[in-house]
């Protein structure tokens, strides 16, 4: 998938963000880099799509944020998963598995 593609599949970005902050709390840049890392560089999330997504998910109650210190000693806003966020991650993961399974089998069928 081309990384220059401006908008990820809707929902995909949410899932990736939830996944990225599932282990530890991260700041915006950290989330962007983590997504690049866990998708082996396939997805590169730009600030233009990341910020609205983060704030939307915070409004939805999946993420909570707090100010903290970055690894380079800069003040940064950190996001972590809330309880509803964790439930959302699970739900979306299940969903995604079902769909990708369905799609793979559809594509393998001749």
């Amino acid at each position, binding site marked *: 998938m081309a990384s220059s593609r401006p908008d990820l*599949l*809707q929902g995909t970005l949410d899932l990736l963000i939830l996944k990225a902050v599932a282990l530890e709390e991260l*700041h915006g*840049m950290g989330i962007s880099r983590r997504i690049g890392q866990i998708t082996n560089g396939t997805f590169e999330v730009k600030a233009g799509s990341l910020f*609205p997504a983060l704030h939307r998910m915070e*409004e939805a*109650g999946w993420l909570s944020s707090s100010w903290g210190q970055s690894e380079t000693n*800069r003040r940064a*806003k950190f996001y972590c998963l809330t309880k509803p966020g964790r439930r959302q991650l699970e739900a979306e993961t299940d*969903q995604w598995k079902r769909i990708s399974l369905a799609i793979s089998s559809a594509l393998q069928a001749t």
Partner: protein
Amino acid sequence: METDFSRHFKRSAGDVRVAVTYRLYRFWRNILRKEQLDRDLDQEVHSYLDLLIDEKVRSGKSRDDALQEARLELGRMEEIKENVRDIRIGVTVETGFQDVRYGFRLLLRNPGFSSVAILTLALGIGSTAVLFSILDGAYIHFGQTPQANRVVLLNQRFTKDKSVLVTFSAPEYFDLARLHHSFDGLFALHHSGATLAERIEHPGGPAQVPVVEITANAFSLYGITPILGRVFTAEEDRPGGPKVAVVTYRLWNARFGRDPALIGKTIKLNSISYTVIGITPRRFQQWGADIYTPLGLEPGANDRSDRRLTVAGIAKEGVSAEQTRPELQYLARRIEAEYGGAHSEYAGLVYLPFDVRAVVVGDLRIALYLLLAAVSTLALITSANIAGLLLARAKARAGEIATRLAVGATPARLARQFLTESVLLSAIAGALGFLLGIWALHPILALVPAQYIGEEAEIHTTPAAFIISIAVAVTLGILFGLAPAIFISRRGVAANLRESRTRSVTDSRAGRVRGTLVLVEMTLAFVVIVSAGLMVRTYRQLTSMDLGFRPDHVLTLRIALPEWKYPREIDTTNFFREFMRRTKSHVGVTDVAATSVRPMEGGALRHFSIPGQPERSAAYYRTVTPAYFAVIGTPLLAGRFLTEQDGPLGTRVAMINERFARVYFPNEDPLGKQIRLDEIFDLHGAAVGLNQTSVVEIVGVVKDSRQIASRRVQDLSYPASPEIYTPLWQHREAGRDMALLVKTRQAPALLADPVRRQVLAIDHEQPIYDVRTLKELADVALGPTRLCLLLLGIFAGTALVTACVGLYAIVSYTVAQRTHEVGIRMALGARPGDVLRLVTHEAMPVIAAGLIFGVAASLGVTRLMSRLLYGVPANDGATLLGVTAILATTALVAIYIPARRATKVDPMTALRCE
């Protein structure tokens, strides 16, 4: 495929419910702590940038390169922040508040523009509310019940002697009532008046009240139920039935102080006792009655020539008066076939249906439609003008807009702000207009002669009018808010920015849009002004029209002497003679006359024939006292006036009008000729004449005077009808109920009370009724003209000013834009004339085209108002020419004022101002 995915994910997202309280908390936090949130967001984005830079520096880039790359990667910071703000909960509400605040600030910053726009809009909206309220009260809700809107009055026309009778005989009524299918039902009634007396001594003294004897079914056909007691039953409505009476709310209120104990009490009508059994609802005021009594028709009646009943019906729902005509035609054929043998008058019988509502309202309805059309046109002109001005202002704000677009505002967001601004403007105007409407309703209604408003009508500012005002205001707001909004969103940042910097280049597209708007304004204004012009000419024709009599300084009233008290002719003669003698000697009275029918009232018709001519005809008929013509000021054309010598012992004489002489004695001298007078019948069915014939000799011819039987201005164009006048002292058949005319020196209304006292001095129980000045009666001829004149005048003035403001704005704008260029040209030797041409070259073609389109549109549109015009054609050349001149002159002044400013430009200043 994408959409499928997104649907899956959205649904799963919905599975996880987040507490409503949490969302509410966010909502309030977003609105109340906006500044802090914004600061937070700003810091967050900046920290992101810093982290990016750190990362680049760590990977070995120089600080400057890192900064540049990081900026590139981050994208436009303001746009990101704007996008984040847009997803916040409650963002719509929040920005809405912001827009309203901002809109208010803008309105206040341009008080001139704002107040002109608000006032013109308010005028339009207020007028709409008033006009709609009048239309609603006088026409749409004409009666209290929907049935009252469908009352059809029947007339019969006898082809044989070309007479139209408004009355029917009982057997004729029974035939129709039995055979019809187009009506919910037919009912019959008979008008009479009575002196009302009751046991309670009333301070107002005795009263003459209109009494209507009516068939019992009328109440249920009208769909009314009495507010107290009951109405009479079919059982009571028979010959020799009980003497019961239903009293109207009006009389109950005015005379009995709304005393519920009136039910069951006895009142005396012409000294006969009646028991009051019911009170009608407040607005039920049909057929001019104050008291209804049972008609008591004899079911087996077979006298077909005793025609004294008014017959009317309630058309079935959805059936208009006109649509009952075919059936009535068929019924007429049946009656003719069945009874034509014994009754020769039935040959070629025709029944005529009249929509009572349309007859009462007359031209007023057309006038209201016309005025509503005019006010809508004015509203269009106003909104075109405001759109033009907002457009110009949008251009002036191009720099600001460009900046906002550049920092991430979406065109939709900007458009919404413009809309908010104009809707705000129209909402203020709407509120103001509605207040104006409430205040102006009664003064405006006073311009309509009372005859055009039904007695039942209740006119007040209706909720519907309020809703319409608001709807109009909001629609206009959207209409003229849209123009600049579209204009802005079509243009990109670059164009807007360029616009803000340039001084000498004109934007041709915006110019064209504005030019077109002003052209439309000019054209519409032209039509409105032409309509007003035609109304001015009609009004002048009407007021200078020769009525054939002078209506000023005459007080009129009626006196009906009851038969039980004045049984003989000599008694009534003595009463009226005594009244006139006493009144004439009263201070301020110059003359007094009596007549059976007042001027301007259609009145009675009398059949007549001229010896030696086979045909029988009908003419308007009045019995008058000698002073009649002197009091109303109708001149004598030939022969002599009636005198006191034309008494019971003298030769039977008559006077005729000019029209009578021309029709029946075309090439002869009518003086000395004889007329044979046959039966008399009253247009109101009130006093039924005796079938008494007498031969009279014509002794004088008077000038024609106007008769207005219907409430249509166009009727004034018809020639006068033939009229016969006979001396009262020779023809006292119907002389019990007379109209008295008192010629006064001062304002006639002042004499109403002294005259009443004269009557009571002769007979302390004798009431007078229907007291009016002759001027009031004559005013019916003015119809709705005064209303149209005033309102169209106001609309036309406003339209003219508005269109000129539009022109003024175009030229002012051009001048402002090209000051620099003008400076250069003047420095190079251009003369003021060249400069004028330069700055007006945009406006001149607009003026020319506006005038041409205006003339064309007027020729097409004013035809629709021809029914309201008198003495002037709808395509009146003089009016068109006059309006062209007025509009052209005003338009030239409007463009000259700002254009002159350009010629005063000092080249040095102009060149420096860049």
